[in-house]
C-alpha cells in the first residue's frame, strides 16, 4: 500500500496503456494458436484454442490430458518449480509471438504482461480422487504507474494448469495484450505537454516510427476539483493506484489509472489520468416519466454518449433499441435494462455502464 504524497499539487505523471484491438487478436487467432502451442487448427487433436471476439481473452485446453492423470504421476513436486514453469511459459509465449513477423506487423508484440504477480499456486484434486490431477498457477498483473509506483490491474488474471512433465494443459487468461503505453499528465493547474511514449515499461521516449501506434494527444483534463488526487480531504485513509480491466462484455480501449481510496468495506475510485473515466447511471423517477442521467467523472469533459435499452418483456420481439445521445434521456414508466456507452472525444477512451431501471406508472 503506497501513501500518496499530498504535498504535490501541480502535476502528476501517470502511465496509460493502450489495449490491443480485439479485432486484430481474433483475426490472428490461428496464427497465435500455432505460435503458442504448435496447433494446426483451432481444434487440433483434442486441443482447443479460442480468443473471445468480445473481450480478446485467451482460452486453451488440452482435453486429451486435462483431468486424465488419475494417478497423479509426473507432477512437479514443489510450488516454486510450478511457478517457474508458469513464468517460463509466459516468457516463451511472448518470445514466440514477437518472433512472428506477421503478428508483429499487426502490432501484436506480446500476449502476456512481462511482469506478472503470483496470486497463488495449488494442486487440483478432483472429487473422489486422492491425488492431484495437475497444478493450477494463478497470476495477477501489476503495471508501472510511474517510475516509483506500481498498481494492480483489477480483474486481470491468468490461470495456467500444469500437468505431468511440466506440460501446459490449459490456459485461461483474463487479459488483453497491450499495444503501447505512454505517460499522461494529470493536469492540475498547467496544460499537458505532448504525450510521451514507451515500448517497454519505464522506457519513456518519443515514439519511434511504427514501433507503437500513435495515440492522439489528449486535451487538457478538466477534472473536477473533487476528483483531484491531491485533494485527499477525507482524512488519512490508505490510498493506492489501481488499473481496472472491464468485464468480458464491455468495450475498453485503455488501461488508465485510478486512485483507490479504501473506506471500510468498500472504496472509491478517483480518475488519475486524462484517460481514466468513471460512468454511472442515475435514475430520477416520477409517476409520468423516468429520467436517466449520465454521471461521468474524469477525462476531458467532452464526451459522446450513446444510450441503449431493452424491455425484458419485449426483448425477443423488439430487441435492443437506441435511446439517445445526450447526457440525459427519458423513458416512459416501465422496467428497462439500460446501457450507457461514453467516449471521451479527446482521448477516445470508452467506458460502459449498465443497470436495470424501473418506475411504476
Amino acid at each position, binding site marked *: 500500500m503506497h501513501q500518496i504524497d499530498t504535498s504535490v499539487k501541480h502535476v502528476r505523471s501517470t502511465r496509460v496503456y493502450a489495449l490491443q484491438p480485439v479485432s486484430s487478436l481474433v483475426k490472428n487467432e490461428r496464427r497465435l494458436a500455432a505460435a503458442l502451442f504448435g496447433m494446426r487448427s483451432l481444434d487440433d487433436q483434442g486441443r482447443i484454442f479460442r480468443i473471445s471476439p468480445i473481450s480478446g481473452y485467451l482460452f486453451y485446453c488440452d482435453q486429451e490430458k486435462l483431468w486424465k492423470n488419475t494417478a497423479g504421476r509426473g507432477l512437479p513436486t514443489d*510450488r516454486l518449480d510450478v511457478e517457474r514453469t508458469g513464468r517460463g511459459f509466459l516468457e516463451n509465449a511472448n518470445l514466440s509471438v514477437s518472433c512472428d513477423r506477421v503478428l508483429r506487423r499487426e502490432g501484436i508484440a506480446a500476449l502476456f504482461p512481462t511482469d506478472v504477480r503470483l496470486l497463488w499456486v495449488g494442486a487440483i484434486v478432483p472429487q*473422489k480422487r486422492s*491425488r492431484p490431477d495437475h497444478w493450477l498457477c494463478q497470476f495477477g498483473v501489476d503495471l508501472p504507474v510511474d517510475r516509483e509506483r506500481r498498481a494492480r490491474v483489477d480483474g486481470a488474471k491468468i490461470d495456467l494448469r500444469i500437468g505431468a512433465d511440466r506440460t501446459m494443459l490449459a490456459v485461461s487468461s483474463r487479459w488483453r495484450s497491450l499495444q503501447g503505453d505512454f505517460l499522461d499528465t494529470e493536469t492540475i493547474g498547467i496544460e499537458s505537454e505532448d504525450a510521451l511514449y514507451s515500448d517497454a515499461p519505464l522506457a519513456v521516449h518519443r515514439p519511434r516510427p511504427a514501433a507503437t501506434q500513435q495515440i492522439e494527444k489528449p486535451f487538457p483534463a478538466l477534472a473536477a476539483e473533487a476528483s483531484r488526487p491531491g485533494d485527499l480531504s477525507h482524512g488519512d485513509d490508505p490510498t493506492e493506484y489501481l488499473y481496472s480491466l472491464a468485464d468480458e462484455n464491455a468495450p475498453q480501449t485503455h488501461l488508465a489509472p485510478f486512485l483507490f481510496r479504501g473506506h471500510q468495506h468498500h472504496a472509491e475510485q478517483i480518475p488519475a489520468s486524462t484517460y481514466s473515466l468513471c460512468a454511472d447511471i442515475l435514475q430520477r423517477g416520477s409517476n409520468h416519466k423516468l429520467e436517466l442521467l449520465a454521471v461521468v467523472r474524469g477525462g476531458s469533459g467532452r464526451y459522446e454518449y450513446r444510450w441503449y435499452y431493452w424491455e425484458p418483456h419485449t426483448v425477443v420481439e423488439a430487441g435492443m433499441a437506441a435511446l439517445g445521445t445526450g447526457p440525459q434521456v427519458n423513458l416512459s414508466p416501465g422496467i428497462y435494462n439500460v446501457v450507457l456507452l461514453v467516449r471521451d472525444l479527446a482521448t477516445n477512451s470508452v467506458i460502459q455502464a449498465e443497470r436495470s431501471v424501473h418506475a411504476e406508472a
Partner: protein
Amino acid sequence: MARRLSRNRWDLEYDIGRGGIILRNVKHDNFNLAREIRVTRIWICDDDPAASFSLNYVSFELNSPEMPMRDAREIEASGVELNSPSAAFSSYHNVFGLDASYATSADYLAGTPNACRPLVSQRYLFGNYGRNPPHEPGAVLDATRLFPLLSFEFPPVALGSRGLPYPRYLRADFLIDVDLDNIDEAGIRSQRSGGRGSSDFANKAAIFRDKENLAGMSVVVQSPAAAVQELFAALEKPLQYEIVSWGIARAEAARQTTGRLLLRNTVSEQQTWDNVHIWPARRGGPYDLDNRVSTPGAFHALHCHWRWGAVAGRRDLDWMDRRLLPAAGQPQFRGLGWSPSAGGALVDPGIPRQNLKFAVTKSDIAADQARTSYESMRDFENAFYLARLNPEDVSGGSDLVFWLSFEVFRDPSKLDEPFKGTLFVNGFYFAHNQDDTPFTAAAGGAYGEASNPHPTRQWTRFARS
C-alpha cells in the same frame, strides 16, 4: 449420444435422451462445476396433490414416450433469445444456450372439456464471467451464471367447465450433482509418504436465511469480534446433516404440507431458507483457516439464492449503506412481494403462487435413481425420508447433490388465461476466484462456522422453529 460443447470458456457435454437435455461434466474456465444437471421429472395435477388423492396426479420425464421432444437446438451468441425471460434477470449477459421443447403425446384430462396437451420447454442459458450486472448486492464477486429454465403452458379453462377438473398444479424437480475441485498438495508428497484418502476431497454446503436489514453487515464492519451468526437470521455452516427443507412458501399448500411420519406441518415464510452455498472441502489458497470459506464471499463456490433480505432490495439507502451494498435495489435482489421489511421471492411474477423445496444430500447413485423414479418422488420430501431413516452427517464434506422442487398453483381468478410461466428464473452462479474477502469482513467473522438454530439429526430443519 453425448455431444461436447466448448464455447465461451464453458466446457460441457450434453445428452438429449430420456430426461430431455442433460448436462454432464460442466466446467467453466476449466473449473469443474457439476457432474450432471437435469430436470428429473414434471408433475401435473388437477388439485393440490398434498391435500388430495387425485387420480389425475401424473408425472412425465422429458423426452419420454409420454412427453416426446418436438425440437432441440443450440442457441448462438447473436440471438436475443439469450436474454432471460425474467425481467429481474434479463440484464445478465448470456453467451450461448441450449433449447428443447416437448408436448405430451396424449391428452391430459382426456375426455373432459379441459383435455389438453401441455407444452414444456427447457432452456439452459450460460453466462459470461464478471460482476456487471452484480451477482450479490455488495457487487464484489466475479462469477458466471447458469439459468436452467423450464417453461410450461396450459390453455385457458374451457368456458362453463370450472366445476370440472382442469390443470391446476405443476411441479418440476431439478438435480444438480455438484462437483467442485479441491486444492491440496499432500497427494503429490504422499506418493512417498502416504496421504489423504479420496473421501477427504469432497464438497461442503451451507444454508442461510438473510437478515432483513443491514444490522449484520454493520456488525462486521464495526466489530472485529463479531461472530458469523450475527450476519444472518439463521444459518447452518457447514451443513451438519443432509437436509430437505423449504425455500419459498408462497402457495396455499405451504400451509398444509405432508411432513415426516405424515404429520401435518405448517410452513411460514419466516421458516424458509434463502440460499445454498456449496464449496470445495479442501481449498488451499493463501489463508491457513482450516479450509474455511467466507460468507459473505465464498469466492470459489456455487451460489443459489432465491431470496435476499429486504435491505438488498432497497433503493433508498443512504450513502454510507450504499457503499456497503452498492447494487441494492436492483431487481435481481428484490423479488416478488418485496417490502421494506421483507425480501421477495425471486420467481416469475406471472406465477406468484409458488413453493420451492430443496434438498442437499450425499451422492448415492442407487438412492438417486430411486428418488427419480415415479413412486418414490411422488412426494418430494418423502422420497428422502424413505431413502434413509435419518440424514447422514455431511459436516466434514461429502460428494453432494443439490435438489430443487418448484411447485406452481394456478390462480383461480385467472382461469380464462393460459396457465403458463417459467421456473428457476434465478438460476445459480459459480465463482472461481482467489479469496478476496475484504479484511473487515474476514476479521468480522465471515470465516466463522456456526449453526442457528442448533441442528438436530432430522431431515427437515427450518430456519426458525
